[in-house]
């Protein structure tokens, strides 16, 4: 891996980390979610600053071009995170449905109570 690419990757990861931390400070992202993002970024930074580790891993896996291993890992991380987000959305959808049904039924009851008075 050449040093320009290495610097570029570290730079991007650091820039992204500052974004995540800023969002965290502004309460625009949950702590639990940001931990996963920051953890992923830390792995990218560590791997980019020790390219020999990477070359070795790529050689063992039979990958001719080591940086493509980096992209492959990034893809896996993103896919996993995406699936996790879909699970979260489904959970939220069910919660919203239940809350909406609760509100609807309570309003109905309220209307009937006031009609009875």
């Amino acid at each position, binding site marked *: 891996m050449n040093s320009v690419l290495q610097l570029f990757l570290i730079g991007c990861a650091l820039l992204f980390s500052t974004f995540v931390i800023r969002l965290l400070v502004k309460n625009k992202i949950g702590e639990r979610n940001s931990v996963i993002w920051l953890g992923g970024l830390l792995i990218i930074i560590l791997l980019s600053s020790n390219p020999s580790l990477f070359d070795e891993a790529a050689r063992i896996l039979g990958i001719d071009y080591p940086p493509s291993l980096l992209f492959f890992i990034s893809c896996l991380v993103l896919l996993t995170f995406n699936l996790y987000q879909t699970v979260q959305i489904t959970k939220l959808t*069910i919660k*919203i*449905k*239940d809350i*909406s*049904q609760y*509100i*609807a*039924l309570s*309003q*109905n*009851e309220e*209307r*009937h109570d006031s009609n009875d008075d």
Partner: protein
Amino acid sequence: MESVVLTLKKLNYPFDIVIVDDGSTDGTAKKAIDSGSSVVSHPTNLGYSAAIQTGFKYAEKKNYPYVIFFDGDGQHDPNSIIDMMEAITLEHVDVVIGSRFLQDGDMKIGVSKRMAIIFFQHIIYLTTKKRITDPTSGFKAYKANVYKLFTKPNEFFYDLPDSNFIIDILLRKHTILEIPVNMFDRQNGKSKIHNTGIKPFIYMAQTLLSILIVIIKKKRILKIGGKLE
């Protein structure tokens, strides 16, 4: 919608009428409330399945022994309600389905919908060995022992409760009876299964997947039940 409620009220049957309004924005809910009906109004659009579950939850709250579902789009014939009521109260079954195919009618059904119905008739027979002629009918009556099963958030997870729901009920060893009812072409509103483009295929794939999940879940419950014994 108003004409349906009016007809139901005129029939003067001994039951409560409740309207589930799925977040309508055209003033339907207000009109219904003004007319003196009991209305449960979703604050936002939640879909067909959630509306059915709201009906179940309402029934559970009021502790009704039976609940009959009736579409408000003019597709179901209010005069068939008495048959549904007699069937659910007098017959020893847990669920009654109003079928449009058990009597001669002039119901116009497109080729793709007819094929989907025949397909799911077979799937239901294959999985439960029961013949259901109208798996997509929304005209259903439930006894309390069945509808109370589906008021919990994780027990009613269907996007479209059709054949998958019927299979679920049958696999739980509940009994279903079909009776002939009259159905009309929709006066207003859209079908759950849109008859154009790719949507029928997505509907079929989704329902098949849902059936598969019902069967897997059922197997798991049986396994856990077997271990406990």
